[in-house]
């Protein structure tokens, strides 16, 4: 199929969507026996039209359309400008083929470099999410259930303030701290713990520390918000019934905050897997993180279709993985958004 055929379809989409929303608003299902005003009567015609059009354009132009263009682009070949839209511009799987075999046509060798980086990114992001959870849970619990209000405000300020500094600057600061003649190594050598500087960057410790730190706040807030809704009397009731502290956390607190844990872990996992600044600044010469590879497809290789295919592979893998984990934890998407 000639790939230019896809474009008219994409441009008609917003109008189709508006019509669909319009019809949904018109024939909104109503609870039986309840006299309720229609969507248009409730909001007035001008506001109703504004809502339908605004929601449509916002969701389509900000969210759906750019992604659709990426999807569409990922199935196109890399062609010189002059040949785009010409007879060679056919939909193809060659960009996905490249990810697996390292070539657009030959299937002899497996593209281990990219595949390894891909799985390492997923796996490391998962570890970062779990590590973040373990690190943030005690603090979030302390803030939500133990600390007096004034101290909670102080803690929140301390937590938020570092994030006023932008991500690149934070990453570079961490790199300076962790470099072979940086502060941490000076302290370690000065105190006699090690006699050679530790290669934090080459061993990816800096990368994981940077990624872990980058999205910690999201984990803290997800946990804090759910732990705060747990009635303190529940914890006291469990203690009163004889429960030791670990039993209270395992059987009272954690089941209650499961949605918060899921939403925090999802956020940290997704953002770590898709993070660019920290891997670019903090990874060592041998580091393999998938996002810099995607970035290189776009900017270094100047192969946008391939970049689109790579980005899409990462996105689909992450979403699938998250849905799978939610399924395991018997949670719905609606619950983690609470």
């Amino acid at each position, binding site marked *: 199929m000639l790939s230019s055929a896809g474009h008219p379809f994409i441009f008609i989409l917003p109008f189709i969507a508006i019509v669909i929303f319009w019809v949904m608003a018109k024939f909104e299902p109503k609870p039986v026996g309840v006299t309720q005003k229609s969507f248009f009567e409730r909001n007035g015609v001008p506001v109703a039209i504004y809502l339908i059009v605004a929601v449509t354009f916002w969701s389509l132009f900000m969210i759906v359309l750019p992604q659709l263009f990426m999807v569409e682009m990922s199935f196109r070949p890399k062609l010189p400008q002059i040949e785009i839209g010409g007879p060679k511009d056919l939909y193809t799987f060659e960009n996905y083929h490249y990810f697996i075999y390292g070539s657009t046509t030959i299937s002899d060798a497996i593209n281990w470099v990219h595949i390894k980086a891909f799985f390492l990114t997923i796996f490391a992001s998962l570890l970062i999410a779990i590590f973040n959870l373990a690190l943030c849970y005690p603090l979030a619990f302390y803030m939500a259930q133990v600390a007096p209000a004034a101290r909670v405000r102080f803690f929140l300020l301390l937590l938020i303030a570092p994030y006023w500094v932008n991500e690149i600057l934070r990453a570079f600061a961490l790199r300076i701290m962790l470099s072979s003649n940086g502060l941490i190594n000076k302290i370690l050598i000065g105190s006699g713990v090690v006699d050679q500087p530790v290669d934090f960057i080459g061993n990816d410790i800096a990368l994981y520390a940077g990624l872990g730190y980058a999205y910690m706040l999201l984990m803290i807030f997800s946990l804090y918000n759910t732990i705060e809704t747990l009635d303190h009397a529940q914890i*006291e*009731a*469990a203690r*009163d*019934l*004889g429960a*030791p502290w670990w039993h209270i956390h395992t059987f*009272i607190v954690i089941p*209650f905050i499961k949605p918060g844990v899921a939403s925090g872990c999802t956020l940290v996992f997704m953002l770590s897997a898709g993070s660019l600044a920290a891997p670019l600044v903090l990874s060592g010469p041998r580091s393999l993180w998938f996002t810099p590879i995607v970035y290189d497809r776009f900017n270094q290789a100047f192969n946008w279709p391939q970049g689109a295919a790579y980005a899409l592979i990462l996105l689909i893998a992450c979403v699938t993985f998250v849905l799978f984990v939610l399924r395991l934890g018997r949670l719905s998407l609606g619950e983690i958004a609470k």
Partner: protein
Amino acid sequence: MADVEIDCLTVQFGSFTAVKDVSLQIRQGEFFSFLGPSGCGKTTILRTISGFQDPTNGAVRIGGQDMSGIGPNQRPTALIFQNLALFPLMTVFENIGYGLRVRGVPKANRDRKVDELLHLTALSDQGHKKIEELSGGQKQRVAIARALAVEPKVLLLDEPLSALDLKLRQYMRNELRAIQRRVGVTFIYITHDQGEALTMSDRIAVMNRGKIEQVGNGRDVYEYPQTSFVASFVGENNGFSGTITKISGDQAEIETSVGRLVGLNKKSLVVGAKAILFIRPEAMQCGAQGENNLSGIAADAAYEGMTTHLTMKVHDGSSIIATLTGAPALEFPPQGSSVSFAFATRDALILPV
């Protein structure tokens, strides 16, 4: 034998003293209530007994054993929270069995015990339900069953009925008393509702500002209040403050803003002492002449069927209430006309301010 002994207990929060030097002995198997207005320190005492609050001074002993340094999860007490604090993610069955699960009781024994308790609290067919599916009264009973499951020596109840509506509250009073008689566990009950305290308790401690004003059974605190706080807090009361002018035998005469009144001087007050004369509304007579007479203007008659509450405004602006049993409401003079109340000296108590 004393089951719970509170010995010179003082609890301070910063500069605020919630409980001041309270000493008390609660007997084995007793239904004991702490009655007082909010902020009087009764909840603090309860939290100190259960171990959630450390005393600043003094000690709590349960079954003769000093409880200091023993955490709430190690004490032979179980607390029923004001909001019940049932675990929302567990079923009724799991809620009741939680304390036993924590103690590592084998599943078979645990299930048997929970079944017994479900039966005791008339919840036999509700075990599989989620907490949110229960009615207010059922939740109440689950909370009681959950607390009794760990076989506490003492059950502590922190105003557990306050969230229920009036009908259910009255029903649960009887229910609680019946459960207490059946299991024979010492109940320590916290309430600001004198009706609850009077109907359920073997003994009541009336508290005010961190101190115990009086301990006694319902009749003691209602009919023989020892302090003016108890007299005015427990039940309705008319109080006339003034100065004692004459003592004769066990009676005293007090000069008040509505005139000279005579009452019983059980506290042996002397001439010149500031005091308050209390007279219950039901001891007032309307329209009659007696040992003590008051006159004023008829203000209001509230008819409640069995009783009628008559309000009279006296010349200094204060209101006096008389409660009459039967149907004399029609005899009450119309609003605004002059009226007189009378009461007998033996019904009036003179207590220090």
